């Protein structure tokens, strides 16, 4: 069975597992569960724990084979063990930041995991995302180095702190790695939120009130701050749209489950005002409409898409592209560029995105794989070459040629 069809079955499974439609939902569940390769596809999403818990609860009623549950449990235990480790390391780091008086917000992952999924074994984590104030980044760096983390994104950096400051300021985030015995822990430290360059600059995401109305959560035994539910919703939507271009089941399911948990509590008028521009509302509206399409019209919050997405914001064929992206496991670079050019809600905005990639020195700033700066006059040709190369690679992959 095609991977996209399997992913569609997984989404049907999520919808049915949370449905109140009794026999109809049960039949849908049985259909999905009888699909060959489904358990492997579930494991590939990194959400074995979430599915294992729900399927185990409904095991007798649906007649699910014990071997299915057991197979998912093996993955769940592995995820749980790793996440327990991540949680302990995160708690330690949060305490260190607090003791130094560095304000911080825990983003995504652990911050809402127990509220949305029930426990921390539900899905895999690859890193811990922390948001700090821009002025605190050097102090945060000191803490991380004291905790034996190493800067990852410039492994050979040996210059003074001032240079580090200048270099990382361009990126707005830095990645840190620590080896602990046989395990590795990754930290993404953000002082700007740029989930999808260059749209984040276009949307002025840094001006959104990320630091307002934060709520408290306990991670391990450490108190932490997390985004308010409204801002968390916006962050998940922008992360899914901008950073992942609506690709990948895990982020989409997490977005849907957050809606399931908080959809009735969110202050939609506030979110609409926060989203601000037509472009930002379009991104959020697409997420909500996708959730309605795959989870059903009764899913909490999804009907709000009509207040965010205006008909003139989409080009013909654009929305089906995003629907298709959700079912893909990974995005191609070509699809990424295409989505970024399409994301703005107006023709003018789309032209600005295209101009960025063709003429802005930050659009494509390096020769592919060499690390050398691209002469500005050649950028347009290089941009077209990259797009053509991606299309050619995509065709070869589709035809099965090496």
């Amino acid at each position, binding site marked *: 069975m095609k991977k996209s069809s399997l992913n569609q079955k997984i989404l049907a499974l999520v919808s049915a597992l949370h449905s109140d439609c009794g026999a109809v939902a049960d039949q849908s569940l049985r259909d999905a569960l009888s699909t060959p390769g489904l358990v492997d596809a579930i494991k590939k999403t990194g959400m074995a724990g979430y599915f294992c818990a729900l399927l185990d609860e409904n095991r007798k009623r649906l007649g699910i084979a014990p071997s299915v549950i057991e197979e998912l449990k093996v993955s769940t*235990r592995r995820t749980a063990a790793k996440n327990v480790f991540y949680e302990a390391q995160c708690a330690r780091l949060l305490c260190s930041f607090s003791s130094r008086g560095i304000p911080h917000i825990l983003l995504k992952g652990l911050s809402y995991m127990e509220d949305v999924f029930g*426990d921390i074994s539900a899905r895999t984590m690859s890193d811990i995302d922390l948001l700090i104030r821009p002025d605190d980044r050097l102090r945060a760096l000191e803490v991380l180095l004291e905790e034996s983390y190493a800067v990852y994104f410039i492994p050979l950096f040996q210059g003074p702190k001032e240079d580090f400051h200048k270099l990382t300021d361009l990126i707005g985030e830095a990645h840190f790695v620590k080896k602990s*015995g*046989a*395990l590795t822990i990754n930290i993404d430290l953000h002082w700007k939120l740029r989930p999808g360059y260059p749209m984040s600059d276009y949307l002025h995401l840094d001006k959104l009130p990320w630091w307002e109305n934060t709520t408290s959560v306990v991670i391990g035994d450490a108190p932490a701050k997390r985004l308010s539910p409204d801002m968390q919703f916006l962050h998940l939507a922008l992360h899914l749209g901008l950073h992942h271009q609506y690709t990948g089941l895990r982020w989409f399911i997490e977005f849907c489950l957050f809606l399931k948990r908080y959809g009735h509590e969110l202050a939609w008028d506030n979110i609409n005002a926060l989203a601000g521009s037509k472009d930002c509302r379009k991104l959020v509206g697409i997420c909500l409409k996708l959730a309605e399409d795959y989870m059903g019209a009764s899913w909490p919050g999804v009907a709000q898409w009509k207040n965010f997405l205006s008909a003139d914001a989409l080009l013909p064929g654009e929305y089906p592209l995003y629907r298709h992206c959700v079912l893909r496991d990974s995005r191609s670079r070509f699809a990424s560029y295409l989505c970024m050019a399409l994301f703005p809600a107006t023709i003018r905005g789309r032209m600005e995105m295209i101009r960025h990639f063709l003429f802005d020195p930050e659009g494509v700033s390096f020769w592919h794989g060499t690390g050398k700066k691209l002469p500005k006059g050649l950028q347009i040709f290089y941009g077209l070459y990259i797009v053509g190369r991606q299309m050619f690679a995509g065709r070869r992959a589709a035809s099965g040629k090496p």
Partner: protein
Amino acid sequence: MEKILKKNPEIVWKNIRGESVLLNAVTGKYYGLNKVECSFWEKIDGTRSLAQIAELMLEEFNVDRETLEGDLEALTKKLIENNLVLMEG
């Protein structure tokens, strides 16, 4: 004098859905404990001996002393072999 049981400080653990998940951060190996084993693990606090923990568990579970003590000895042996628990004193 009876030996005291102590958790290996390198172990991180958490109760999740009725099971305990234990991870040895040094080796990267992980372990799952069922409900009864989990209760035993939670009672290891660095001050209690195996016999003292067995007494507490007898109050908690409807099981005869001989069976429980036999099971706990086997479990303790397994936990020590896997370097999850240390025996002191």
